[in-house]
């Protein structure tokens, strides 16, 4: 059995606005290294809410979260920032690239923050990641000069830059057309197969989900399977 990368234990969350509504109810599951997992479910069932908790950005929940066997629950904001920087890569529906910086610099930023390698090395690694996503030619452009699909690929390159344990995506293809969605899906499959990258992707696209190794289906704040 391979190593557990992420583990949720009895995670519960409610919103209190204005009355308390439970959104997540006793969610427990784990993800092994190298898994390519998709999360599906009806709109409003709590997929994004769960992902924000798993990504350590949302700390307002009950239960425990382990990443790389380490308890995240109760850690300080600064420590969690460090965990996200080092161990988690994000891809959202929107690309969130900084228009002030070049594509290359956007990819480099999280690595410069981590400061594990020298700037030259980081630049080299950023080029490698852009190459994997086949957009190294756009490296010196500004993000606003790219197409939607290209932007999303840059966002994936940014998520990869620190060789994270896990990549989390919240409907990363949600804004893309069929062709670009397929490209992104191929990239994820390639990452999972070639680089044994662990992936946890929330999606609406059942066809996309059916091609992943494992599907977690949610309904009304619970995991069905």
């Amino acid at each position: 059995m391979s190593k557990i990368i992420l583990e949720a234990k009895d995670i519960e969350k409610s919103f209190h606005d204005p009355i308390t509504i439970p959104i997540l109810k006793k969610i427990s599951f784990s993800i092994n290294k190298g898994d390519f997992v998709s999360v599906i479910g009806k709109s409003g069932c709590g997929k994004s809410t769960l992902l924000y908790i798993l990504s350590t950005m949302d700390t307002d929940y009950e239960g425990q979260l382990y990443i790389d066997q380490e308890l995240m629950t109760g850690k300080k904001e600064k420590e969690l920032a460090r965990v996200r920087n080092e161990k988690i890569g994000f891809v959202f529906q929107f690309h969130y690239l900084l228009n002030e910086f070049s594509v290359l610099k956007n990819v480099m930023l999280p690595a410069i923050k981590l400061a594990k390698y020298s700037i030259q090395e980081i630049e080299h690694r950023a080029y490698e990641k852009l190459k994997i996503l086949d957009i190294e030619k756009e490296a010196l452009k500004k993000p606003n000069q790219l197409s939607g699909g290209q932007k999303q690929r840059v966002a994936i390159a940014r998520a990869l830059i620190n060789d994270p344990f896990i990549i989390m995506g919240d409907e990363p293809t949600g804004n893309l057309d069929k062709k670009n969605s397929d490209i992104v899906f191929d990239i994820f499959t390639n990452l999972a197969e070639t680089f044994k990258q662990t992936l946890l992707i929330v999606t609406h696209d059942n066809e996309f989900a059916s091609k992943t190794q494992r599907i977690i289906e949610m309904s009304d704040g619970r995991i069905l399977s």
Partner: protein
Amino acid sequence: MIKPLIIDIAKSLLLARWRQTLVAAVGVTFGITMFITLLGFMNGLNDLLDGLILNRTAHIRLFNEIKPSTIQPIDLALRNDIHFINSIKPNGHGQEIDNNLAIIASLKKDSRVMGVTPKVTAQVFYNVGKVDITGVINGIDVEAENKLFHFQEYVSHGNYIDLKNIPNSIILGKAAADKMLANIGDMIQVTSPNGERQTLKVVGFFQSGLQELDKVQSYASLATTQKILGKSNSFITDIGVKLFDISKAPAMAKEFLKIYETDAEDIQTANAQFETGSNVRSIISYAVGVTLLIVAGFGIYNILNMMIYEKMDSIAILKATGFSGQDVKRIFITIALSIGLFGGLLGLVFGFLTSLAVDQIPFNTAALPTIKTFPVNYNPKFYIIGITFSLITTYFAGWLPARKASQIDPVDIIRGK
């Protein structure tokens, strides 16, 4: 690694909004320019007015007040008995400082003392035809007086050193000379308190800047004055002491009072009102400068708030990819401080230039013959205070927005998309 990265991000956010940044910086520049100009001008004015009195006044003056002895002979004879004496009168040598040569010698040895000048004051009448005008002749050691109290600067006509070189000479107050219709080279007559008449040659006019003073005061050499009074050349009524550190004057005056058994008055006590005036002028300049900076601070506060509002997404992704709240805060504080530094430095330059301009504006007043333009003080201290102020204000202006940015919850932003 982290520091340059934060500066890098701050810089690109700044440049992306350089127009607004410039406006904010111009606000700081304006505030600092005004601050430097005002402080320079006000302090120039202070120096000038201080110079009117303080430069020319001894830091400590030793003299003998005419008063009855506090210990009367009967006190010594009947120590424990009760006795009454009515109408005690002063007696003896009056204003003369006993043993003045020894006192001067001992003062000169004191390491806190810059210099000592002996002085004789004589109450006289200037005889103008049939009319007598009251006056005071200050007998001075011309060279020492010039060295310590810039005597020369206030001699508006004639050469001050003639006072020493020409026997029986006098430098008249300009206002007194005008009243007497005396010109340089004229002979005038004065009458001493004991009724003796003396003929003196006018070698110059003296303008202190205080009209009242110039109506009565004149200067002559020590020897001439002693002669007018009919006293020997050891007769001294005043000893002026100039210190290296003026602030020590009150304490040292008390000390001298004990040691030399004379009266001793320090400059602070004698001229308390001047200090008040100086302080008020300083306070006004600081108040204006700080007010302008606070206005500039609001400008910075606004631009940062706007920037944060526009850059919500960027802040959210920075936080999602591993920047802590503290990092985000530092980015915005850096932005604020660089506006403060840039605007402030520019303000120093402009402030200096405006000061130079003010320094060129003609300022002629009959009372101050040596002053031709507005006085300006270029003390580097004001420039250091100016830049420090601008950094402090911008820091505080940036602090609230920066804190707000650091508390942005990326989940809220990302969910909103």
